[in-house]
């Protein structure tokens, strides 16, 4: 299933998903977003009502409700409550410019993300801007093994390392390294009291294909699989030879059919044989999306870079399958 829609991105309402384990500072950030003078009228959907300290008619409570979309496949899920509430809210879309969804500390972000690509109405009317995950620098290691923590790190486009005032630099750097091992693609920010420039978290356009990949520069150089200390990890694949799109498409389809629930996100910039344009690709569990992008620039290093974030990744098998897609 592709996740593109015919409606241009500029006509769709941007949505930011705010995740983070309990106590990471989501409410503080939400209150900042609501009071910040960014000129945006922001509507907020919360799953833990009463925490937002601001009286605002556009703060709406929803009860998390997961709908399976595909005969019980555990990863093909959406949030039924969001479909209903946002459907109601979109009748008044001229009243706000941006939608923020705050998930509970124990939520898996995948159903929220998938809702915006699977639901007929929502995918035409809204555009997922970014998943912003707050990390409590002081306490995150205590909860490191929790599935929710790892999922929230893995799905993030922006990782906000918060409560920096409560740890020293060595502790912060150690956590950053472990976070990077799970998610090398996210924009990494450090904050105290969730005090970050709003333009770093709103208007990120992380799901626009042309921004498919922005890797930590050190990551590809590192070129080994990053499963240092967790079942959730990431793998970077680099190929200098041009690839074959048909082979790559078959390999990816087969891969998500077999391992979809364990493959959280993939992103890639592909160099195709006989093509002057880059091919860009991304996925969320079993949702795949790919398209031709701009031409390679003169002097740009033409090669394929592909990152997989997932659970129990079989690095050797993935490398072999990927390498076999050469043209």
């Amino acid at each position, binding site marked *: 299933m592709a996740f593109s829609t015919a409606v241009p991105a500029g006509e769709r309402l941007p949505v930011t998903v705010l995740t983070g384990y309990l106590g990471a500072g989501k409410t503080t950030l939400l209150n900042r977003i609501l009071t910040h003078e960014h000129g945006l009228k922001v509507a907020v959907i919360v799953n833990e009502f009463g925490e937002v300290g601001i009286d605002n*008619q*556009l703060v*709406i409570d*929803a009860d998390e409700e997961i709908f399976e979309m595909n005969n019980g496949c555990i990863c093909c899920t959406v949030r039924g409550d969001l479909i*209903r509430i946002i459907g*109601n809210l979109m009748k*008044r879309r001229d009243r706000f410019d941006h939608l923020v969804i705050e998930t509970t500390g124990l939520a898996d972000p995948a159903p929220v993300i998938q809702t915006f690509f699977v*639901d*007929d109405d929502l995918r035409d009317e809204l555009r997922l801007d970014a998943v912003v995950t707050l990390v409590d620098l002081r306490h995150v290691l205590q909860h490191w093994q929790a599935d929710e923590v790892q999922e929230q790190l893995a799905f993030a486009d922006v990782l906000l390392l918060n409560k920096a005032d409560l740890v020293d630099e060595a502790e912060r750097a150690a956590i950053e390294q472990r976070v990077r091992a799970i998610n090398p693609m996210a924009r990494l920010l450090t904050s105290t009291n969730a005090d970050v420039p709003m333009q770093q978290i709103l208007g990120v356009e992380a799901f626009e294909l042309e921004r498919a990949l922005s890797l930590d520069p050190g990551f590809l150089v590192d070129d080994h699989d990053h499963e240092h200390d967790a079942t959730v990890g990431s793998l970077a694949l680099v190929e200098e030879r041009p690839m074959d799109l048909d082979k790559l498409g078959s390999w990816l389809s087969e891969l998500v059919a077999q391992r979809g629930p364990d493959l959280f996100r993939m992103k890639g910039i592909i160099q195709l044989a006989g093509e002057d344009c880059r091919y860009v690709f991304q996925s969320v569990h079993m949702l795949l999306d790919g398209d031709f992008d701009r031409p390679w620039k003169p002097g740009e290093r033409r090669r394929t870079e592909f990152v997989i974030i997932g659970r129990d990744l079989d690095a050797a098998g993935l490398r072999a399958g990927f390498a076999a897609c050469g043209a």
Partner: protein
Amino acid sequence: MAAEPVLVNEQLSGALQQPITALAWSPDGELVAIASGGGELLLLDFRAGCEELLRGDRDQSLDAIGFSSDGQFLMAVGQAGELLLWELGGSGVRPLALEPLALGAGWLDAAAWRPLGLLLAVAAGREVRLWDGASRQWCPQVLDLPGTVQALAWSADGALMAASCNGELALWQPLASPAPPPFRLATASAGLGLAFSPRAGLLAAGQMDRSLLLWPELGQGTPWQFSGFPAKVRLLAWSDQLGSLAPPLAVASGDTVVLWSQHDTGSRGWRPQPLLWHGARVNALAFAPGRPLLATASGDGTVALWDGNGALRQSLEGDGQGFNALAWRPDGQHLLAGGDQGRWWLWPVA
């Protein structure tokens, strides 16, 4: 009624501040209620020739409104999570607002009066609750569902209530004595729209998985299942005209309307006729009472009128804004439409 009477029988258009979300006619066709995404509620009284804004813009949507079958009450529910009720004394008498009833179940968007009597069913989270206009109390009976109620509908005789959530359709006889336990049917996805036929006792459910379920006998027996719609099936309307067997059924899915008619009672007896004309999502559809005439309203800024054979008879436009809602006057001669920028139009339909 209002301080400044307006001759609404000559007024064919008006405007609220925010997008129109719901429209309703009183059973005698003398009153119209119009609700908006800002929580405005306007009451037009045709016999007295006046209008009254029962509620102003307060930035919290109203999403479902309706008159009780005897015209005694007007109800409204929406974003604030309260049931609002007005007692109506008839044409020319100022409506009396009852104390709002908070349900504590978040945004309310589905509620329906029983076709007979004074019972109002309200979808409140994972429950269907009943408010009794005779006693002005909540009834002790509550229907529980395993998920948030997405849609509800009464059978034409008012004996049966259907309610759907993700994975289940429940059929309930709240007034039977002794009341049997609700009959529960498993469904593959969420029922987004429910409608009993006004005759012949069929039940239709529009599903999120782009399918339509049709039960022959009030939800009993094996349903026909039709899949392959272009988008989720949200809107359903039965004609009150008899077809060759069952009455015709109109279904909206994305920008497509499909007119279904039954030609024999076999598994392939239902035939779909796509009515392809709208250029954006269809947001409302309704058959005219007593006539083989279907109206469909779309975000493309048009209302289309189709005859019983699915032929486009006429298209209507307002001022370019998309349409959100439609309601036929019970006489079938007047069509009210509400726009996504707050304007409403009333058209006499010859």
